[in-house]
C-alpha cells in the first residue's frame, strides 16, 4: 500500500522532471560522448567508429591548448575581480546609504542586457568613443582601439565581463549581508573587535554560503564565456583572444571537424566540472552556522 503511494508520487512529481532532464541533458550528453568516437562530419549517413583518433587530434591542436590556457588566465582574473568588487559594493550597499535601492538596481542592470548586445555596445565604446577621447586629449592609452592589441583586447574582455557579472553577484552578496544577524555584530563590537577583525572572523565565515554560490557561478560562467567573446573581439586580433568555448565552436563548425570539436568540448566539460566541483567542496567545508 505504502510503496504504491511512493510510485504514484514519484510518477506525479519526479517523472516529468526526470524525463525532461534525460531528454535534453543526459541523452544528448551521452550521444555527444559517443560522437567523439566516430568520424561523423555532421552530414553523412554513416558514422564509422574510429576509437580515440579524435582525442589524438585534440592533442595536436596547439591552438586549443593555448586557448585553454588563455581561458584559465581569464577565469582567474575575472573570478577574483568580480567577487572582490561585488563583495565590496554589496557591503557598502547594505550600510544604509542614501539611494541604495537605486544603486542596487543600477549595478544589476548590465546583467539584464544580453551578452551579445553588451559586446556590441562595448565594441563601439572601445573602438570609437575611447579613440575619440584619445584623439581630443592625446592620452596614449586611448590613442588606438583597445581591440586591436592582444593584451588590451584581453583587458577589454575582462573589463566587460566583470562589469556584467558583478551586478548579479552583488545581488547575492547583498542578500547574504541582509541575513547577517545584528546581534552577532553588536556582540563583536562590544568585545572590541576592529573593523578588519570583524570582517575576517565574523562576516567572512557567516557569508561563506553566499561565497560558495558566487564563486561557483562566476567560475562556470567565466569558463563557458562565448557571447561576449564573440561580439566584442570575435577572437581577434588575429585569434589572440579566442577562449576555449569559442575555439570549440570554430573547430566544429568553421573548420568542420565535428569529431575533434566534440572531443574538445568534452575535455572542456571535464575541466570545468572538476574545478567547480572542487571549489564547491572546499568552500562548503568553510561554511559555519551562526
Amino acid at each position, binding site marked *: 500500500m505504502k510503496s504504491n503511494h511512493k510510485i504514484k508520487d514519484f510518477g506525479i512529481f519526479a517523472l516529468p522532471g526526470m524525463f525532461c532532464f534525460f531528454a535534453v541533458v543526459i541523452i544528448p550528453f551521452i550521444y555527444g560522448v559517443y560522437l567523439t568516437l566516430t568520424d561523423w562530419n555532421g552530414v553523412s549517413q554513416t558514422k564509422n567508429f574510429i576509437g580515440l583518433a579524435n582525442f589524438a587530434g585534440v592533442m595536436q591542436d596547439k591552438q586549443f591548448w593555448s586557448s585553454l590556457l588563455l581561458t584559465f588566465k581569464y577565469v582567474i582574473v575575472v573570478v577574483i575581480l568580480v567577487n572582490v568588487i561585488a563583495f565590496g559594493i554589496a557591503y557598502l550597499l547594505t550600510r544604509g546609504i542614501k539611494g541604495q535601492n537605486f544603486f542596487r538596481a543600477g549595478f544589476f542592470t548590465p546583467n539584464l542586457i544580453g551578452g551579445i548586445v553588451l559586446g556590441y555596445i562595448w565594441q563601439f565604446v572601445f*573602438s570609437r568613443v575611447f579613440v575619440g577621447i584619445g584623439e581630443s586629449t592625446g592620452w596614449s592609452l586611448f590613442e588606438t582601439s583597445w581591440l586591436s592589441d592582444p593584451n588590451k583586447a584581453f583587458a577589454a574582455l575582462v573589463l566587460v565581463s566583470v562589469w556584467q557579472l558583478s551586478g548579479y553577484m552583488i545581488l547575492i552578496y547583498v542578500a547574504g549581508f541582509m541575513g547577517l544577524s545584528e546581534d552577532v555584530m553588536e556582540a563583536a563590537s562590544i568585545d572590541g573587535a576592529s573593523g578588519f577583525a570583524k570582517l575576517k572572523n565574523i562576516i567572512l565565515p557567516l557569508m561563506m554560503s553566499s561565497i560558495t554560490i558566487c564563486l561557483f557561478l562566476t567560475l562556470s560562467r567565466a569558463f563557458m564565456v562565448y557571447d561576449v567573446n564573440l561580439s566584442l573581439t570575435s*577572437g581577434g586580433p588575429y585569434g589572440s583572444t579566442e577562449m576555449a568555448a569559442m575555439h570549440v565552436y570554430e573547430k566544429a563548425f568553421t573548420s568542420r571537424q565535428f569529431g575533434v570539436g566534440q572531443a574538445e568540448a568534452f575535455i572542456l566539460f571535464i575541466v570545468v566540472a572538476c574545478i567547480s566541483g572542487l571549489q564547491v567542496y572546499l568552500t562548503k567545508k568553510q561554511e559555519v552556522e551562526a
Partner: protein
Amino acid sequence: MKRKVMTRVIASALTVVFMASTLTGCRFGFASDPDDPNEVEEKIPIDTSTDTFEYDPALSGTSITLLNSKAEIQVALEEMAAEFEKKSGVHVEVMPVTDGDSPYTKVVSLYNSGNPPTLSILDTTDVIALAEEKAEDLTAEPWTAEAQEYLTEVNGKVYSFPLCIEGRGLIYNKTVIEEALGETFDVSAIKTQDDFVALLDRLVAAGIEKPISMAKEDWSLGAHQLQYIYETYDGTSEGAQTVIEQLKSGELDLDSYQRMTEFLNMFDILKKYNVAKGDPLGADYDEMAIDLADGKTAFWFNGNWAWPNLEEAGAKTTDEYGFLPYFLNNDENDFANQMIQGSPSKQVMMDGQMASEQQKAAAKEFLNWIVYSEIGQQMLVKSCSLIPPFKNNPYEPQDPLSRDIYQHVQDGTAFNASAIVPNDHWSILGAAMQKYLADRCDRAELTESIEEYWKQQK
C-alpha cells in the same frame, strides 16, 4: 521634501546621460537612420505585362521552401516568390538564415532534423561538400546552356544553380579623384602598379592624405585578398586548384612563388596608404563606406556587395563608382593588371534526398522561371540587384558597382576564377593576414603559416 530632491537629482542625471548619448551620436557619425519613417523606399517597377513562360498546371498547389543566406535580398526574394505563386500556383516559402548562423550549419541542422529546404542558397564550397550526398543532379536542366562558364561541376555533374556573379577589386570614387586632381579621371590609363602608386602620390599631394580604406575583417583579408595568390595563377578555377594541390603536397615554395611576392608588394602599397595606418586593426567597416562616400578616401578594397553599405553612407545610384584591378606588377600585358575578378559566388542547391518528385519539379520550374520568364529575369536584376550569370538575361544592374562588374563581364575584362578552399581558410589565414597587416610579423612568418595551414589539410 527629501523625495523631491532625489527625483530631481535622478531626472537631471538622466538628462545628462541622454544629452551625452545624443552628442556622441552626432560626433561619431551614424549613417542614415534605417527606421526613419520619412525616408521613402524607392522601388524599381517590374513590368509584368509580358510573360511567355509556360507553367505546368499540374504543379499548382505544391509548396516548396527556399533557404536564403543573402540577407540583403530577403525582401526581394519574398516578392519574387509571391509573383511566382501568382503565376504558377506554387508556394515558395523563403526562410532567412539568421545572423550568426552560417548557411552551411543551418542546412546541416535542417537535414539532421529531417526537414531540409527544397532549395538553399549556399557558397560554392558548401555545395561541393554536400553535393554528392544530398543534392539533386541538375545537369540536364535547360538553363545550364545559358550559364556555361559559370557552372560548378562535381565529378562532371552540375548540382547547383549559379544565382549571381560577384566581383571584387579596388572600388574608386571617381568624383573624389576628379575633384582632388582637377582633371577627368580615365580608369584605363592606370595599367600597372607603378601607375597606381603615381596616382596615389598625386592624390596625397592634392590633400587626400591616406587615400585607401582596407577592411581588417578576416573574411576580407583571408578570403578576398589572399585568395588572389591562387586565382591569379592563370585566371581560372583550374589554375587555382593546381596551386592549392601543390601547396598541399609541399611542392610549391611560397617564398619563391612569383604571385605571392607580387601580392604582398601590392598589399604593402595598400598598407602604406591605408587611412587607418596608425591602427589598421581598429578600422571600422561602416566608417570605410562613409569615408569613401564623403571623399575622405578615394579607394576601398571590396566587392560589389558593398553597395548597400555605400548607399547607407549617402552614395546615390547616379554617382560614379567603379573597380580597379588588384595590380600585381608592372607588366601591362599581365591579365591580373587588366581584369577584375568576377565569379559566381552564391549557388542554389536542390535537395535530392527528402523532397518529393512533385516538389522537385516545382523547384526546377522556379529556377527555370528565374532564367527564362520576363518577370523572373527582371526581378533577379532589379529587385534583388544581382548580376545575372545568364546570357539570355537582357537587364542591367542598377547600382554603379554591379554595373561596373557587369560591364567588365560583358567586355571580357573579368576573369572567372574561384579558388575552392577549406571552410576555415578565411578565418585561420585571415588571422595570419591580420598579424601581417598590423606589422606584428614579417613576410617569412606569414608565408610559413600559409604553408603550414595547407600541409595540415588532407
